[in-house]
C-alpha cells in the first residue's frame, strides 16, 4: 500500500516542481498559492508512505537504496517547508522540489529488489545513525543552495541587473539559512558518525576504520569543522563561502559513491 502513497506523493511533488517555476521565477501569487498546498499534501502522503514502509516489515529504518532515497527526499521537503515557515521564502522550491521529485521517482516505481540483508542494519541505533547522516546530507544540500543563491544575488546587486533573478531572496536571509543549515548539518553529522563509530567498534573492531567510506566520512567531518570555524571567526560570505560549501558537498558525493568501493559498509552479506 505504501507504494501507492509514494506514487501519489511523487505526482504531487512533480506538480509542485512545475508550479514552483512561475511561483518563484515569475513571482506570481496565484502559483504560490498552488505550489505550497500541493507540496504540503505531497509531504503528508510521503510521510504516510514512509511510516507504512517502515512498519510493513517491523523495521525501524530504511533498508535498501530505494528506501534511503525516499527518506532523503522526505527530509529535503521537510527542510524546504521548515525554511518556508521560518523565513517565508519558497525560492528553494525551484531546486529542492525537483530534487525531491527525482529522488522519490525511482522508489515510487517499484519495490527495491536489493535490500541490505545483514541483521546488523535492523538495530535501532543504526536507524538513528542513518537518519542523522541523511539529515546532515539534506542540510548540506540546502546550505550549498543558499550559498549559491547568495552568490547569484550578490552578483546581481553588484552588476546592477534588474529583472532577471529578481525572485532571489535577500542576501541576509540567504546567509542565515546557509549558516543555520550548516550548523544543524554539523550536529547531525557528528551524532551520526559517533553512533556509527561506536557500533562499528563493537562489531568489527579497528579494521572498520580503514574502509574508504569511513575514512572519507571522517575527512568530511574535519573539513566541515574547519568551514564552521572559518565562517564563525571571519564572517565568511559570498564567493569563498560557496567554494568551501561546494568542497564539502563534493566530498559528500564522494562519500556516497565510496559505498561502491567499501567492503564493510554494504551490508550485502551476513
Amino acid at each position, binding site marked *: 500500500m505504501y507504494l501507492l502513497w509514494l506514487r501519489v506523493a511523487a505526482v504531487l511533488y512533480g506538480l509542485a516542481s512545475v508550479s514552483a517555476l512561475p511561483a518563484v521565477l515569475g*513571482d506570481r*501569487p*496565484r502559483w504560490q498559492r498552488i505550489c505550497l498546498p500541493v507540496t504540503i499534501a505531497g509531504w503528508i502522503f510521503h510521510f504516510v508512505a514512509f511510516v507504512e514502509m517502515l512498519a510493513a516489515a517491523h523495521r525501524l529504518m530504511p533498508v535498501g537504496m530505494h528506501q534511503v532515497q525516499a527518506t532523503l527526499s522526505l527530509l529535503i521537503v521537510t527542510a524546504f517547508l521548515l525554511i518556508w515557515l521560518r523565513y517565508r521564502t519558497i525560492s528553494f522550491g525551484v531546486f529542492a522540489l525537483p530534487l525531491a521529485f527525482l529522488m522519490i521517482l525511482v522508489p515510487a516505481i517499484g519495490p527495491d529488489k536489493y535490500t541490505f540483508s545483514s541483521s546488523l542494519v535492523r538495530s535501532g541505533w543504526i536507524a538513528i545513525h542513518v537518519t542523522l547522516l541523511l539529515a546532515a546530507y539534506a542540510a548540506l544540500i540546502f546550505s550549498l543552495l543558499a550559498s549559491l543563491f547568495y552568490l547569484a*544575488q*550578490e552578483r546581481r*546587486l*553588484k552588476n*546592477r541587473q*534588474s*529583472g532577471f533573478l529578481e525572485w532571489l*531572496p*535577500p*542576501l*541576509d*536571509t540567504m546567509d542565515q539559512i546557509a549558516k543555520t543549515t550548516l550548523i544543524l548539518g554539523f550536529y547531525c553529522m557528528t551524532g551520526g558518525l559517533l553512533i556509527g563509530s561506536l557500533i562499528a567498534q563493537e562489531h568489527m573492531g579497528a579494521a572498520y576504520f580503514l574502509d574508504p567510506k569511513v575514512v572519507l566520512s571522517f575527512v568530511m567531518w574535519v573539513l566541515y569543522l574547519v568551514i564552521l570555524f572559518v565562517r564563525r571567526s*571571519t*564572517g*565568511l*560570505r*559570498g*564567493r*569563498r563561502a560557496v567554494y568551501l560549501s561546494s568542497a564539502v558537498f563534493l566530498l559528500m558525493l564522494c562519500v556516497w559513491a565510496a559505498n561502491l568501493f567499501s567492503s564493510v559498509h554494504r551490508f550485502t552479506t551476513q
Partner: protein
Amino acid sequence: MKLLLTGVNHKTAPVELREQLAISPERLSDATRALLAFPGVHEAMILSTCNRVEMLACHEASSPDLLGFLQSYLGIETTSLRPHTYEYRETDAVQHLFRVASSLDSMVIGEPQILGQVKESYTAARSVGAVQTHLEKLLQSTFTVAKKIRTETQIGSSAVSIASVAVDLAKKIFGSLEEKRVLLVGAGKMSELAARHLMQQGADTIFVTNRTHERAVRLAQNFQGHAVRFDDLYATADQADIIITSTGSQEHIFRREHGQQFLHKRRNRPMFFIDIAVPRDIDPEINRVDGVFLYDIDDLQSVAASHLDDRTREAQRAEVIIAEEVVRYQRRAQALNAAPMIVDLQNTAEEMRQAELRRAQARLQSLTPEQQAAVEALTRGLMNKFLHMPMQAIKAAALEADTVMLEVMRAAFNLPAVQEQGKPHVPAQPSAANAEEPVSIGDQRDRS
C-alpha cells in the same frame, strides 16, 4: 438612468487650472451634496486629487451641465475651462472609471494611492446619500476590477522613484531594515528623502555628518539621530549598514581601501553605499570589495526607469482585463434591466386579456362555472404561449447588450420607457468593509 463623467486631469489641464478646481477632502461631502442637488442629477460622486478633478453623475433623459455646477459652486469661469475638460458617457464612463481606479490613468502608472482616493470619494458620497443603486453597483464593480488588476498583473510591484528604489535595494541586501543603521554624509534633498524612506521602513538609528557640524546637528535633530563630526567619519562609518553621500566634495570621500577596512571591522557584514552626489563622493572601485554594494544616482535612475518599463508592459495586460470587465459589467446591467421590461410585457398582456374577458362577459354568462374556468385557463395559456417568444428575445437581447433590439421590442409592445420602469433588482453587494479596506501607502502619490 444614464451615466455621465466630466473632468480634467494632468494630461488635459495645467496645474494652475487643477489647483483652482481642487476640492479638499474636508469639503468633499459638502460639494457632493451640492452636486446631488444640482438639476438633473440623481446620483453623484466627486473625485478630487492633485492630478484630477472628476464628477460622476447618474441622470435621466437630459444630461446635466456639470461644468455649470463647477461655475456655480466654485465661482470659476467655465469658458476657459471647457477646452481642458473631457466627457465620457455610458460604457466610456465605466471604462474610464475602471482605468482611473486601477491606476492606468495616473501620472505614475500603477501608483497605489488612487484606489484609496476613489474609496474616500465613494465614502463621502455615500455619507450624503449621493450613492444609490446605480453608482453603488458601478463602484463596487470598480473596486473589484482594481483589486483584480493589482493581483493578476504586476503593475504596482516594483519601485519607480529614486528613494523607493534605494529602499528596495537595501531590503534585497539586508532583508528587513529593522535595527539597521544609516549614515548620512552631507545634506541634500534627495539624500534626506532616501533616509526618511529608510527610517519609515524600520531603519533603527541615523548618523549625520557634515563639514559644517552645526548643520549636521540640525539635521540629526530632524531625524532624532546622532550628529558625527566630519573628522570622525572614517572611525564611525563601519558602524553604519547603509551610507548615503551627497556632499559637494570634488574628490572621492570613500575609496576602495576604506571599503576593505570597514568590511574587515564589520567581519564581512555587507554595506550598502548610496552615492547621490555629482561629482561622485565614492570611488566606483569600492564596488569590487566583497560585501560592499555601491549605487550612484545614475544606477538608481536606470533601475527606476526599467521598473517603469515593466509597469508599462503590465499596463497593457491590465487594459485587456478592463475591456473584458467593462463588457461583463454592461451585460450584467442589461440583463438586470430586462427583468422589469418582462414584467411590463406580462402586465400589459394581462390587462388586455382582462379587458377582452370583461367585454365578452355578457355572452359568457350562460356558461357553467367549469366552462368559465376552462375559458380562463384557455386565454391565460394562449397569452403565455404568445409571450414566450418575445420574452426569450428580450432576455437574449439584454444578455447581448443589444440596446437597439430592446428599444424595438419596447416600441412594438408599447411598453413604458426605461426611466418609468421600477428600479432594477440589485444583486448582493460586496460588504462595505471590503470597499473601505485600507490601501497601502506608497511613495508615488496622485494627491500632492
